[in-house]
């Protein structure tokens, strides 16, 4: 749901741009530069993930992986997604450059929210099943929040509310399920192999 140029009103584009800049600053401050490779890796995962196409008639949607990125990166999701979205806009024409701020806010805020809601719970989880279940919910929630923020941005730019939000959310319900599954598997795998990644996530309250 990358929003292209010319769709958002000037006010919405400017204010989401400002929010995006603020978020990126937060992310850069809280980011642990020792583990920059992880940030780069997840940025690349997002970059490629958005190209994976989930055909849902009548339209099509793509994987976002904001839940996964949020759980593993926290606030560092903002700079990671800024870079990835910028490259997508420049190389593929996904999303406009004037709407870059909006797209960053749409993708990265749910990531941070998922981190706040789920990361510590996953770290404390007793069994792999609970890890999978929590991460599944996190993945679906990430998409849901992204849809809602995108719908809000479109609504504030003059689109009819139910049309904007409804079209996006309904179109993404299958994506929520797939994302939940992918996020669940990925986080369960990380929990199995490198649980310390989840306990001391890159940018969180453990500063």
């Amino acid at each position, binding site marked *: *749901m*990358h*929003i*292209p140029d*010319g*769709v958002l009103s000037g006010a919405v584009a400017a204010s989401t741009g400002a929010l995006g800049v603020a978020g990126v600053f937060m992310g850069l401050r809280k980011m642990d*530069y*020792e583990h*920059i*490779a992880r*940030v*780069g*890796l997840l*940025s*690349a*995962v997002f*970059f*490629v*993930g*958005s*190209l*994976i*196409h989930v*055909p849902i*008639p*009548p*339209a*099509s*949607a*793509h994987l976002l992986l904001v839940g996964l990125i949020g759980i593993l990166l926290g606030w560092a999701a903002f700079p990671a997604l800024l*870079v*990835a979205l910028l*490259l*997508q806009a420049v*190389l*593929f*024409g*996904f999303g406009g450059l004037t709407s870059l701020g909006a797209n960053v806010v749409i993708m990265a805020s749910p990531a941070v929210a998922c981190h706040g809601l789920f990361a510590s719970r996953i770290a404390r989880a007793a069994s792999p099943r609970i890890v999978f279940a929590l991460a599944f919910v996190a993945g679906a929630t990430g998409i849901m929040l992204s849809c809602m923020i*995108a719908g809000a*941005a*479109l609504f504030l730019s003059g*689109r*009819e509310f139910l*049309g*904007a939000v*409804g*079209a*996006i959310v309904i*179109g993404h319900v299958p994506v929520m399920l797939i994302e939940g599954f992918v996020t669940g598997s990925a986080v369960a*795998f*990380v929990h199995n*192999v*490198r649980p*310390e*990644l989840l306990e001391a996530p890159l940018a969180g309250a453990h500063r």
Partner: protein
Amino acid sequence: MTSSANRRFLLPFILTTGACLVLLAAPAQAHKIKIFAAVEGPAVSGYVYFPGGGRARDTAIEILDPNGNKIGETKTNDAGEFSFQPRYKCDHVLVCSTPDGHQAQWTVGADELPEELPPLHASQPGADPLPPPDATAAPGPPQSETPGASATPAEIEQAVADAVAKEIAPLRAQVTKLRQELERYRGQIRLHDVLGGIGYILGLAGLIAYLHTRRMRNPRAGHDMP
């Protein structure tokens, strides 16, 4: 965090990324909307589609003049196609948009439109949307009778015009097809763009890591390198 644990972690991610790239080698999996239009006879017709995906049904299209004023509107049908009849000989900018925020545009140049159309006047209302099908109708008034022995110059001219129109109809179809293919090609995602993007991201991360290492090694060097 030992380096062997790192390597264990890295390999599955690399494999997954590789699998994704293989998936992408399949026909373009883009997620934006595109619109294509061509002049066929007296009408402008085209379609709205997702590159690598299907057609966009029931999508609103605004028709603007070169100054950005709206001179008409239309909608795609179930097959994602639309058609309308232009009334003026000017550039027509077609802007399609979906409720979930996709938008694309296409300009039909004035030079592609039939000669007979009047130029644009400031105070005119919009163009008429035609019912979509039969966009392959050849232009021109009904056929006159085959000229007999006493053919007038006008009848000869008409007959010639009809014959030429018939001859170039397949050519026009081919040119339209060619433009469609060109647009589809332009909308495709190419592997080297994907690899380039990944390279940029990892390179940026590497650069930051390098600079960070330098700063760590000289914590009290006078100037702080960013």
